[in-house]
C-alpha cells in the first residue's frame, strides 16, 4: 500500500516499525482480525469502515497508539484527540440509535393501541385495552391505574375501574405471568377483559367509591387537569399544598399522573396512574408518552359508550317493533276470532231453539209413556243426545262470549260459594264432598263473573269425573303478590301428564262430545284474565288446578 509522504499514517509508520494491530493492512484474510466476526466478512476489504468500526476500539490499536504517543511525534497528540472525538461521536450515535429504537417501539405500540381503540365499539374492550396499555410492561409500564368517568347527571367524576396489584406479592405473580407469556397488547387486553375486568372492579371498590369528585370543585387537581386539557404530574403529594391530603392518603403514593380524557370538548373522564409498588419515579418522558395516548382513549371511550347507548335504544326499538308486530298479529287474530265468534254465536242460537223443541217434546212424551214401552228407549236417547248437544252449544257460546270479557270487581269466595250451591246436587249424586277453605278478607278480583264461574264449574265437574266412589274436593283461596290464588284439588285418579297437556290444548276432543273444549276453554278464558292455568298433582293424591286472578287495583 502506498502511504502519502508526511501523512499521519506515514508518520505513524515511521514512528513504529512494527504494529500489533492489523489496521495498516488494506485487505485482510479471514482470521487476521479477531474483532471481525461471522457475518462481518465485508469489513475484511472495507479498510476505512474497518478502522472506524473495529480498530478504534481494539486493544491492540490502543497499544499501537500509545507507542506512537511515546515516540514523541508532534502529530501523536492531535491523533489521540481525533481518535477520542471519533469514539465520543460513535457513542453519541449509538445512544441516538437506542433512543430512535425506543421511539420506534413507542410509535409501534401507539399504532397498535390506536388500531385496537379505533376498531372497537365495545366499552369493556376499550377499557381493558386502555388500562392494560398503561399497566403492561410492553406499554407504559405503570404499576397501577384508576379510571374515573364523568357522571353527567350527578355532575361528578366517579371511580369506575382500578387495575394493578395491591401488594408486592400480587405484583410479583402478575409480572411473572406476564414475563412468561409473549402476548400482544390486544391479546393481553382480551385476557384481561375475559378473566379480570369484573374482579378488578371489585378489588379496588373501596378506593373507587371514595374517588368521587364534584365537577364544580374547581381547585381539585382532577378538575384542573380537565380544565387545562393537559396531564398533570403530581409530585410530593403528601406535602403538596395543591393536593387534597385525603387523596394522597387514599392513593398512598407521593407521585402520580393525572391524565384528563377529553373528546371533542366533552369531559369523558380521567386516568390516574402511579408506581405504588416499585416506587419508580415518574418522569416527564412518561407524562409526554401518555399524553399522546389519552386522546384516542377518550375518543374510543366516548364512541363505545355512545354505541352502548345506541345499542340499548336499538334493543328497545327492536323490542317495540316485535311487540307491535305481535299486537298486529293479535289484532288480526282477534278480529278473525271475533268474526268466528259472531258466526258461531249466530249458528248456535239458531240451533238452540229447534234443539230445545226436539228435546223438550221428547221429555214430554217420555213422561206419558209406559215403562215397558219399546219406544221409551228411543225417546230417552233423543232426550240424552239433545241435552249433550245443548251442552256443546253452551260451551261454544261461552267460547264466543269469552272473546270479550266484561271485567269487574268481584269477591272470589262468594263466586265459589255460588258455584258450589249450583253443583250441590251433582256432588250429592257422586257422593263427593266439596269443601271451601277460604282466606278471609280477600281483596276483590278483576274478572268477568260469568266466565270465571264457568271455569270453576268446569274444573269442579272435571274433578268429579276422576273420582270413583266417595271422594273429596278442596277449594282453597289465598292472597299472593297482586293476585288471589284459587286452588282446587281432588283425591281422584291423578291425570297422566300427556292427558294434562291435551286437556289444555284447544279443541282436542279427549272425552265424549260435550266436554271436549271445557278445560281448554277455561285456559283461554284465564289467559284473557292474565292468569295461568296450572294442572298438577294434588296434595290429596289426585289433581290440583291452580288459577291466579288479578286483584282489582285499589282494593
Amino acid at each position, binding site marked *: 500500500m502506498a502511504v502519502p509522504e508526511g501523512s499521519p499514517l506515514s508518520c505513524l509508520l515511521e514512528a513504529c516499525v512494527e504494529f500489533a494491530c492489523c489496521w495498516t493492512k488494506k485487505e485482510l484474510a479471514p482470521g487476521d482480525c479477531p474483532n471481525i466476526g461471522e457475518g462481518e466478512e465485508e469489513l475484511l476489504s472495507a479498510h476505512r469502515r474497518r478502522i472506524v468500526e473495529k480498530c478504534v476500539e481494539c486493544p491492540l490499536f490502543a497499544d499501537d497508539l500509545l507507542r506512537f504517543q511515546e515516540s514523541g511525534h508532534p502529530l501523536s497528540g492531535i491523533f489521540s484527540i481525533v481518535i477520542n472525538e471519533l469514539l465520543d461521536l460513535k457513542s453519541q450515535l449509538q445512544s441516538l440509535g437506542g433512543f430512535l429504537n425506543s421511539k420506534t417501539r413507542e410509535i409501534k405500540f401507539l399504532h397498535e393501541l390506536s388500531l385496537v381503540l379505533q376498531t372497537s365499539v365495545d366499552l369493556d374492550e376499550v377499557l381493558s385495552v386502555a388500562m392494560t396499555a398503561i399497566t403492561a410492561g410492553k406499554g407504559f409500564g405503570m404499576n397501577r391505574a384508576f379510571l374515573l368517568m364523568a357522571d353527567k347527571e350527578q355532575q361528578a367524576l366517579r371511580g369506575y375501574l382500578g387495575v394493578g396489584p395491591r401488594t408486592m406479592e400480587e405484583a410479583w405473580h402478575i409480572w411473572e405471568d406476564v414475563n412468561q407469556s409473549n402476548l400482544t397488547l390486544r391479546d393481553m387486553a382480551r385476557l384481561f377483559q375475559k378473566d379480570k375486568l369484573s374482579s378488578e372492579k371489585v378489588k379496588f371498590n373501596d378506593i373507587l367509591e371514595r374517588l368521587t369528585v364534584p365537577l364544580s370543585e374547581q381547585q381539585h387537581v382532577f378538575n384542573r387537569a380537565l380544565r387545562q386539557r393537559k396531564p398533570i404530574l403530581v409530585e410530593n403529594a403528601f406535602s403538596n399544598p395543591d393536593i387534597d391530603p385525603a387523596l394522597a392518603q387514599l392513593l398512598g403514593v407521593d407521585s402520580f399522573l393525572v391524565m384528563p380524557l377529553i373528546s371533542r370538548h366533552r369531559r369523558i373522564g380521567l386516568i390516574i396512574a402511579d408506581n405504588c409498588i416499585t416506587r419508580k419515579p415518574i418522569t416527564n418522558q412518561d407524562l409526554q408518552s401518555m399524553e399522546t395516548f389519552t386522546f384516542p382513549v377518550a375518543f374510543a371511550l366516548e364512541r363505545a359508550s355512545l354505541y352502548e347507548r345506541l345499542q340499548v335504544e336499538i334493543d328497545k326499538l327492536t323490542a317495540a317493533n316485535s311487540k307491535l308486530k305481535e299486537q298486529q298479529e293479535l289484532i288480526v287474530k282477534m278480529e278473525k276470532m271475533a268474526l268466528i265468534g259472531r258466526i258461531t254465536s249466530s249458528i248456535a*242460537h239458531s240451533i238452540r*231453539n229447534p234443539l230445545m223443541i226436539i*228435546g*223438550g217434546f*221428547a221429555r*214430554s212424551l217420555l213422561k206419558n209413556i209406559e215403562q215397558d214401552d219399546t219406544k221409551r228407549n228411543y225417546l230417552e236417547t233423543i232426550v240424552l243426545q239433545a241435552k249433550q248437544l245443548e251442552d256443546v252449544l253452551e260451551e261454544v*257460546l261461552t267460547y264466543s*262470549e269469552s272473546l270479550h270479557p266484561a271485567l269487574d270487581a268481584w269477591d272470589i269466595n262468594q263466586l265459589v260459594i255460588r258455584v258450589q250451591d249450583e253443583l250441590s246436587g251433582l256432588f250429592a249424586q257422586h257422593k263427593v264432598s266439596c269443601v271451601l277453605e277460604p282466606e278471609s278478607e280477600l281483596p276483590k278480583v278483576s274478572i268477568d263473573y*260469568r266466565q270465571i264461574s264457568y271455569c270453576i264449574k268446569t274444573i269442579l265437574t272435571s274433578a268429579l269425573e276422576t273420582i270413583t266412589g266417595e271422594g273429596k274436593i278442596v277449594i282453597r283461596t289465598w292472597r299472593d303478590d297482586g293476585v288471589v290464588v284459587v286452588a282446587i284439588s281432588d283425591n281422584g285418579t291423578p291425570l297422566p301428564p300427556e292427558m294434562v297437556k291435551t286437556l289444555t290444548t284447544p279443541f282436542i276432543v279427549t272425552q265424549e262430545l260435550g266436554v271436549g273444549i271445557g278445560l281448554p276453554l277455561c285456559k283461554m278464558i284465564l289467559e284473557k284474565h292474565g292468569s295461568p292455568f296450572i294442572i298438577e298433582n294434588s296434595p290429596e293424591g289426585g289433581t290440583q288446578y291452580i288459577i291466579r286472578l288479578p286483584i282489582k287495583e285499589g282494593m
Partner: protein
Amino acid sequence: MARLLVVDDESSIRLLYSQELADAGYDVVTAGSAAEAVTQLEAGEFDLVVLDIKLKNESGLDLLQKIVKERHDMPVILCTAFSCYKDDFSAWLADGYVVKSSDLQELKDEIRKVLAKKNR
C-alpha cells in the same frame, strides 16, 4: 190456579210450554208477538209473563219495558236462547232470567219462586 202468559214467536215452543206448564198446574195462555201479548194483557188478568227476548222483528226487552211501565206489579221471567242478555241493563227489569233448555225444570223452578215472592 196461577195464570201465565207465554210470549214466543216460535209456535212449537208455545205448544211445548203450554203443555208442560199446564202439566205443572198452570193456566197457560200464549202470544206469538208483542202486539198479541199486549192485547192479551189488556183483555185478561195474568199472574206472570214468560217472555222471549228475540221475537220476530221485535225486541222482547221493549215489551218488557212496556209491561213494567204499565203493569209494574206484573212479574216477568225472560226465557231466551241468549245467555248474554243477563248482563244487559234492560234485562235487569225482569224478575227472572232463564236460558232456554229442553229440560224445563229450571223454568218451572223460577216460575214457582217468582210467584211465591209475588204472593208473599
